[in-house]
């Protein structure tokens, strides 16, 4: 899932840096950004078509609730593994450009199969379509993240990831706005399940548009590579085998424990939160939705800033422990008081964004460069698996033992992650504490490493605030520094997306309210 890096040694002279056609030009880059956003638009859009047409699916295709839920879970479950394999394949075989086109094609085919399944009202074909769609969808996200890293690393990377995150919400929102009118228009020409099928065929056109974007982007990237003399470094680096996983340090496994346990206390909570706020705090459904969405809003807004904060201060483990403790406090408040839940949820949102910014770069400090993709893949996969099972489990807890017990479960998870964090802190302190150093300390420990790599970024070095931050990140540890920023954001953005999809599956009601 890692982007190939430039060595920077043979950067050619710029041809016409002022022309907007030049890949180094800011306008040119933002045109590429637009394409990247639309590259994902199709899959985001089609992902939520069943949600937007939920009533029609039930009336026209006569699906019951569990069949309907299967349309979503058939997407999620395979991706517990596939997002990891997809990234690995891109790293080792496809490369970014081909990978994008391949995955986008799979997404498009999946969407068409699904529409066809609805058109002839064959449930198994719908499921197959969603499955194929899912295979492409998550891996597509991984490649697009690679694109983003390739084009924006050392520049507007945080902002771009933020924008991608916003765009994912935008894609499904547009879907909720548009599908209903489209359906009504189609139903003047067709009837029964055929009109639903035709509507979905129209929706799958967005995937086709995305595919075209992917091809254009591929061409632009090819051109940029030629002009800027970017080279694939992959061939030089020693290939990494999956069996090397067993050599990962124990600290890495403790980190994955935090990845799983901490996130279990956030996302299932959001999934089940709406009713909790309604029941315990007597909120109206709309208010409850508002509170519930605070975590996403805050993380979308704050993540880049916390990223900068941690870039400046270092001491990741301290930040991680602080945010876990804050989260425990927030959950305690929600469980054992009747204080306004906004207080609890806002502190939850803040601590969650802080943790996300502090935790993911740690992997880069622990795991060697050529194994990073796999390492992040493992974190992702276990996390997704945890979430997929626990969301069901959490629902059972609520039905059987109530929300207090659910909160107890979340607190239990948080305690586990706190223990893991404290253990990492101790182990790390015993080994001279690389993980918890400030940037200056990191610099002084390894002053021998030259900083030449630092300045050699993929594209040209327009002076931009982000540049400084990346440079001051871990100047000592240049090679790792390269890796640390992009996988963090890659993984984070990706996991956010997966998660928002879980939510859509669990809470069709929240979708309805969005539609209004």
């Amino acid at each position, binding site marked *: 899932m890692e982007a190939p890096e430039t060595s920077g040694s043979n950067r050619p002279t710029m041809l016409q840096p002022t022309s907007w056609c030049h890949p180094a030009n800011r306008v040119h880059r933002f045109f590429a950004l637009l394409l990247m956003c639309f590259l994902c638009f199709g899959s985001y859009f089609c992902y939520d078509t069943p949600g937007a047409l939920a009533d029609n699916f039930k009336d026209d295709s006569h699906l019951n609730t569990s069949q309907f839920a299967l349309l979503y879970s058939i997407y999620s479950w395979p991706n517990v593994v596939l997002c990891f394999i997809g990234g690995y394949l891109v790293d080792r075989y496809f490369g970014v450009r081909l990978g994008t086109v391949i995955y986008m094609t799979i997404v498009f085919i999946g969407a068409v199969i699904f529409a066809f399944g609805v058109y002839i009202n064959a449930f198994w074909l719908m499921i197959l379509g969603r499955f194929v769609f899912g295979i492409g969808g998550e891996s597509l996200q991984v490649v697009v993240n690679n694109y983003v890293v390739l084009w924006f690393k050392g520049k507007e990377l945080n902002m771009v990831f933020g924008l991608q995150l916003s765009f994912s919400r935008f894609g499904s929102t547009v879907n909720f706005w548009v599908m209903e009118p489209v359906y009504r228009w189609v139903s003047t020409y067709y009837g029964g399940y055929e009109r639903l099928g035709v509507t979905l065929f129209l929706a799958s056109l967005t995937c086709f548009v995305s595919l075209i974007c992917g091809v254009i982007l591929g061409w632009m990237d090819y051109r940029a590579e030629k002009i800027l003399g970017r080279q694939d470094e992959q061939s030089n680096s020693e290939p990494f085998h999956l069996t090397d996983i067993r050599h990962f340090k124990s600290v890495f496994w403790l980190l994955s424990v935090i990845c799983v346990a901490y996130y279990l206390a956030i996302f299932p909570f959001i999934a089940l939160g709406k*009713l909790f706020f309604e*029941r*315990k705090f007597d909120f109206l459904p709309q208010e409850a939705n508002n509170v519930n969405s605070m975590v996403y809003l805050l993380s979308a807004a704050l993540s880049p800033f916390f990223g900068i904060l941690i870039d400046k201060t270092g001491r990741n483990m301290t930040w991680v422990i602080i945010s876990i403790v804050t989260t425990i406090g927030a959950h305690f408040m929600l*469980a*054992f*008081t*009747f204080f306004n839940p906004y207080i609890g949820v806002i502190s939850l949102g803040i601590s969650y964004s802080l943790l996300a910014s502090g935790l993911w770069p740690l992997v880069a400090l622990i795991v060697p460069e050529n194994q990073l993709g796999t390492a992040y893949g493992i974190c992702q996969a276990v996390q997704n698996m945890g979430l997929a099972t626990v969301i069901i489990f959490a629902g059972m807890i*609520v*039905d*059987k*033992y*109530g*929300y*207090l*017990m659910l909160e*107890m479960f979340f*607190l*239990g998870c*948080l*305690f586990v992650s*706190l*223990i893991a964090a*404290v*253990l990492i*802190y*101790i182990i790390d*302190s*015993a080994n001279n504490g690389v993980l918890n150093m400030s940037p200056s300390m990191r610099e002084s420990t390894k002053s021998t490493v030259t900083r030449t790599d630092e300045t050699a970024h993929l594209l040209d070095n327009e002076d931009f605030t982000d540049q400084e931050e990346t440079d001051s990140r871990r100047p000592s540890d240049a090679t790792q520094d390269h890796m640390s920023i992009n996988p963090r954001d890659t993984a984070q953005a990706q996991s956010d997306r997966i998660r928002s999809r879980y939510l859509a599956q669990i809470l069709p009601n929240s979708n309805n309210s969005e539609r209004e």
Partner: protein
Amino acid sequence: MHLQTLLIVFVLSFACGQDRRIIPKLNPGCDNCGKSTTLLYIRADGSQDTVHQLWDFTRGMPTIIYVISKLNTSLTINWRFNEPMEFKLSEKPLYSFAVSIDKLTEYNDIENNGYIDNRCPQRALSLRDMEWTRGNTVLDNTEAMVHMRGKFGEENQHGVIDMKLDLLPFKDYAVDLPHLIHTANSTLVDVSLVNLTSSPDYNASRFALHFTIVSTDANNENMSYSMRKSLDDEHTPGVFEIFEIRTPKSSRSDDGGFIQFRPVSYTEQERSVSSSTNAYISNFTWTTIPKTSTLRMFYEEFEKANLLVQDMFISFGLPGDGFYRQHNYTSWSFTIGYGIPPVESFSLFVIIIISIGLGVPILLALSGITFVIVRRCKQRNPPTRFTDDE
């Protein structure tokens, strides 16, 4: 708040811990009572007083009467055929209160609020002519339980009202949702409205139970009801509120009568969170004891000025739930009792998780900090002979 709750629980477990010895009797003193007559008299002797309970179905309206008296007071019932005519206590009672479901009210919930209010068109059906048959019955020293099934006397009203009254003389959570707390002083009552026919001219028909509540308090006083929110929904998932109706004496000094319930009812026989719907209580109004009722027989001797009689509705439903006809079933539970209403407490499990959860990380953190400090101290002040060669 939290501490206070714990404290109350602690005190309560002492106060209510005294379990009572119960002696239930079916139709005591009635020679020609058959299967169709049910009057249960349960005498529960404590250490200081005796609680007499009468569960009466003989005159159609389900009635529960509590009498608190000194120890060794006896109650005798005189019958005429299969109807109780006179209740005689050997000593003047200390306190008495009673609850009777005297009417079933059907209301047309045009605005789809769920609850009954005065603007709803409504039709009351007296339960005076209900015919109750007795089902499962347990009568021993450890439990008094009776299942009753009531059929309507009127031709055009089909369906049944099922009731279950259960007295378990110790403090515990009930087996079924909403897991109310029963004590030696309180009886658990389930009411189910099964397959009732709705009036054809009501298209938004719901049913409400009409209660008459009597207590030996001054008749210018008021029953009070309060809603308490608890943090703990462990026993009633998703429901944080508890409603308590208290007689004036109970509000004053905690030794009167109370009714406790959760604002939740169920639309399916198999009670679960997914089949739950709301239960609402209306305001109290002053009223008189229904004519030809066991309540009237019982409270005849009491002074009018010292007898508080009020009524209220309990109604069921949620906006947009498809009204009663959607499931043709509603069941609801409450407890009625004497003394301090029981308060739910955090279960052992919750307390264990919190203490482990807080304890282990703190221990780890402390030991970790000590470890790091000790290590650093050692590094800063290394033994001199090793540093010589630097």
